[in-house]
């Protein structure tokens, strides 16, 4: 059974179009990721699905319930964790959890087993005020609060933004564990490296979905040849690479530049010669496997948007 069904959702804010004809569906127990940069429309989509705002056109259902008409019923069945930390900073960890448990007509005891893995990590600090927790612990508490009423669907809007890498990794492990308990999870993130941890992902840009597929499929279907290039003067290298015939695209990826090439025009050797002529030293060129980020860049530039 499909838990989330979205059909042709449109949403505009005055001039700006936030969501443009979005359609997708999420299976029960799936971990579905929405990947895209800030301002792509992720939060707007989450707010429509959690019944907080109304779509201009289109329909969406959660567990068969319409987000416009049946909003009251939906609100009893979903858990929502907004992008911004939204718990009471002046209440303690335990008071926050207790409060949200009562709001959802349940108790911590009843659903303790569901949140045990997560909550046990912050339980030693249960008398500390929520505002005094670290970023990672705040997210764990927020997740505990969103889970306390055993929701059927969990909406997590950028749960790992502003969280250190170790806590991010832990957080995703928790999500994968939750999925095993049959909870459908819709999660958004601007971090492309987290995409591979989802069952399926949707790449979103400027309010449009570019692709909805399992992350491995997206990587496998990458149509280009990808090389990583490194030299001593990286900024000069970037502009030289962009001027080189046969290089289709070139983006800076941390320590290296990723380029897609037309192998009929340019070979590995001829590129190195070209760069040496330009006066570069310490040149390394390696063919590499694409990551989701490469796919995202390729998809968005092929749309002519970048």
């Amino acid at each position, binding site marked *: 059974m499909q838990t989330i069904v979205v059909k042709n959702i449109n949403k505009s804010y005055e001039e700006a179009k936030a969501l443009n004809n979005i359609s997708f569906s999420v299976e029960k127990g799936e971990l579905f990721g929405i990947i895209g940069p800030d301002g792509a429309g992720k939060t707007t989509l989450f707010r429509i699905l959690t019944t907080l705002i109304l779509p201009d056109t289109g329909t969406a259902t959660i567990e068969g319930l319409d987000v416009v008409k049946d909003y009251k019923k939906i609100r009893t069945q979903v858990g929502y964790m907004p992008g911004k930390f939204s718990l009471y900073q002046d209440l303690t960890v335990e008071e926050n959890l207790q409060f949200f448990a009562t*709001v959802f007509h349940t108790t911590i005891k009843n659903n303790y087993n569901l949140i045990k893995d997560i909550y046990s990590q912050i339980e030693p600090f249960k008398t500390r005020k929520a505002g005094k927790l670290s970023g990672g612990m705040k997210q764990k508490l927020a997740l505990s*609060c969103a889970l306390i009423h055993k929701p059927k669907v969990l909406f997590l809007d950028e749960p790992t933004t502003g969280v250190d890498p170790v806590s991010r990794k832990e957080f995703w492990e928790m999500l994968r564990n939750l999925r095993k308990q049959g909870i459908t999870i819709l999660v958004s993130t601007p971090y492309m490296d987290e995409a591979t941890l989802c069952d399926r992902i949707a790449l979103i840009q400027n309010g449009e979905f570019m692709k909805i597929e399992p992350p491995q499929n997206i990587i496998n279907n990458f149509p280009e040849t990808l090389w990583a290039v490194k030299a001593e003067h990286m900024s000069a290298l970037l502009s030289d690479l962009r001027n080189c015939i046969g290089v289709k695209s070139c983006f800076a990826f941390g320590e290296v530049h990723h380029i897609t090439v037309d192998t009929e025009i340019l070979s590995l050797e001829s590129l190195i010669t070209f760069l040496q002529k330009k006066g570069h030293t310490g040149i390394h060129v390696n063919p590499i496997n694409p990551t989701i980020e490469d796919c995202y860049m390729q998809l968005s530039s092929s749309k002519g948007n970048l």
Partner: protein
Amino acid sequence: MKQFLAFVIKEFHHILRDRRTILILLIMPIIQIILFGFAVTTEVKNVRVSILDHSKDDITQNIIQQINANEYLSISENIYTTDEIDEIFRKNKTDLVLVFSDHFDNDLRHSGQASVQIIADGTDPNMATMYVTYLTNILLSAQQSLNSGETLSGKFSIQPVVKLLYNPRMKGAYNFVPGVMGLIFTLICAMMTSISIVREKETGTMEILLVSPVKPIFIIFAKMIPYFALSCINLTSILLLSVYVLDVPITGNVFSLIFISLLFIIVSLSLGLLISTVTQTQVAAMLVSGMVLIMPIMVLSGMMFPIESMPHILQTISCILPARWYIISIKKIMIEGLSIFMVWKEVCILFSMGIFLIIISLKKFNNRLE
């Protein structure tokens, strides 16, 4: 019900943990009452009168003695030339100067008329008028006693006897206590409630609360209860202070006073609620309640200036302020000692304002974010 209780407990936590705010909320009324009661005073008390007596005869001496004998006036200086008048005002040695003309006694006995001049400092016109009225009253009574001493027939003079009812000494506190009560309750109830609801919008917790089965009416009423309790504490402290420190008696029934105060507190709370539904940020909520409520209450509610002497259009505007009706009814009950049935009009107005505000804000309370 359990849900509602959890909300109320949460709200109490918010308030009690914010030490500074709660201290301000509890101490502010006390400070205001004391300030308005003692420092900001419009009372006629220790008025210094200087005498320029060109005549120096029995009658002027008699009048001067009467002035000196009055407990609110005292003779501060005797001056001898007209030039000195300006000087002693500038040196702030006097509040009033009384000038007797030459041959005062003589003129009075022969022509039946003599003139005195009262000079007051006009920089504070309200106080000046009050001092002058006071001194004039004393002069009139002196004249009367002279008349009764004389056996001359046909000398009739009709004296207006001004008596200030309810506040015989024109004590400022009588006017300020009801005013401060109106101000404090508006501040605590309307301003603080609206800020605390809007804070949830600002921090994003409202987003989570909306995506939960909790009814909006629960969120709202849970917000009101702690501020209601706080206002009750303040009501007690204000009443105790005014009775035992400022000597403003509660002439009427204490229970009707409390009943009307509670009614007003509820009206103010719902006003705060309405503000919270139309504003999105704490700053906006504070500005709206500050500018739209507190300022007009200071000016329009009759706390500073009598409503009757305001332009007609401002009088009409002041009718929509709940505080105006509250202050009127408190004055009637607390100071004039009327029974609650004599203020039924004010009670009805406050009551219908409360119902109206609650209905509007519940209608306006948004189930969604936009």
